[in-house]
């Protein structure tokens, strides 16, 4: 390369670095928004289905009550009472199991925030370089409502590997006591 060519290449380098950073920021922004959109779609789809299941349970429960009332007013068969007891037990199990959905939605909503907050902060590619990442991380952590979410976040910040975090999460779950009541 002749001296004039070297000069032109040297002058382009800072410009190329800026363009590269802008492309990176734009790509990151698009990627984060993709995650947000995918989570939104998953939440909307499961919302409708779970709501339908919950309504069905409510209907079954109402039917059982009516059936029970009829049994009490007519000749009460032992087999009928046993059927009711079994249906009631099944409803109770379903009621407990279906509550996974509430927790799932909370988790997904927080993951969504974890993507949307940096996505919003990097939407202006020229301002993205000045983003305060510690502030963004604080905002993301503040959205969490479960102890295990906060613990996982802190582990991630300490640089734990994925399998270490999963192991820690498992220990947390084993130590938790769903249904636990504390009266004040």
């Amino acid at each position: 390369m002749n001296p004039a060519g070297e000069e032109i290449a040297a002058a382009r380098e800072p410009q190329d670095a800026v363009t590269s950073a802008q492309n990176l920021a734009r790509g990151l922004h698009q990627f984060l928004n993709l995650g947000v959109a995918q989570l939104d779609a998953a939440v909307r789809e499961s919302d409708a289905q779970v709501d339908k299941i919950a309504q069905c349970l409510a209907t079954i429960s109402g039917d059982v009550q009516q059936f029970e009332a009829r049994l009490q007013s007519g000749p009460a068969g032992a087999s009928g009472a046993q059927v009711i007891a079994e249906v009631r037990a099944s409803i109770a199990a379903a009621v407990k199991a279906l509550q996974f959905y509430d927790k799932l939605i909370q988790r997904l909503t927080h993951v969504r925030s974890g993507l949307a907050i940096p996505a919003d902060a990097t939407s202006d590619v020229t301002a993205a370089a000045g983003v305060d990442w510690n502030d963004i991380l604080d905002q993301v952590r503040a959205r969490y409502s479960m102890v295990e979410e906060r613990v996982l976040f802190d582990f991630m910040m300490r640089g734990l590997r994925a399998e270490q975090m999963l192991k820690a999460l498992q220990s947390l779950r084993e130590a938790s006591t769903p249904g636990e009541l504390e009266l004040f």
Partner: protein
Amino acid sequence: MSKRILAVDDSPSMRHMVGVTLRAAGYEVVEAADGDEALEYARNHSVDLVLADVNMPRMNGIALVAQLRALPAYRLTPLLLLTTESSQQSKQQGKQAGATGWMIKPFHPDQLLATLDRVLSGAATVPARGH
């Protein structure tokens, strides 16, 4: 006459689950989607027990408890928080706001009914108020 429970949760499926459990046990259940809606109802109707989630839009469960406790008619009413949040710090906030108890989701229907039975049997009579 059946006891009236105000179930407060921003999740429709959770409200369904609580409603199914309590109605099957003979309670009258009124549902509200957040603290604001619950407070509005409680100000205009009598309620025997409030069962509220903690994390909700507009007004959260702890703020709802604090607002209800400030109303003379709810000074002795059992106010239970039912939530996925299990940190001691949050429980402490609930206690300071005036909550009767803190229950961690997911609940088992039998456990929830036993809890309601326990706190309602120990509760003082709530003055009846006009609608």
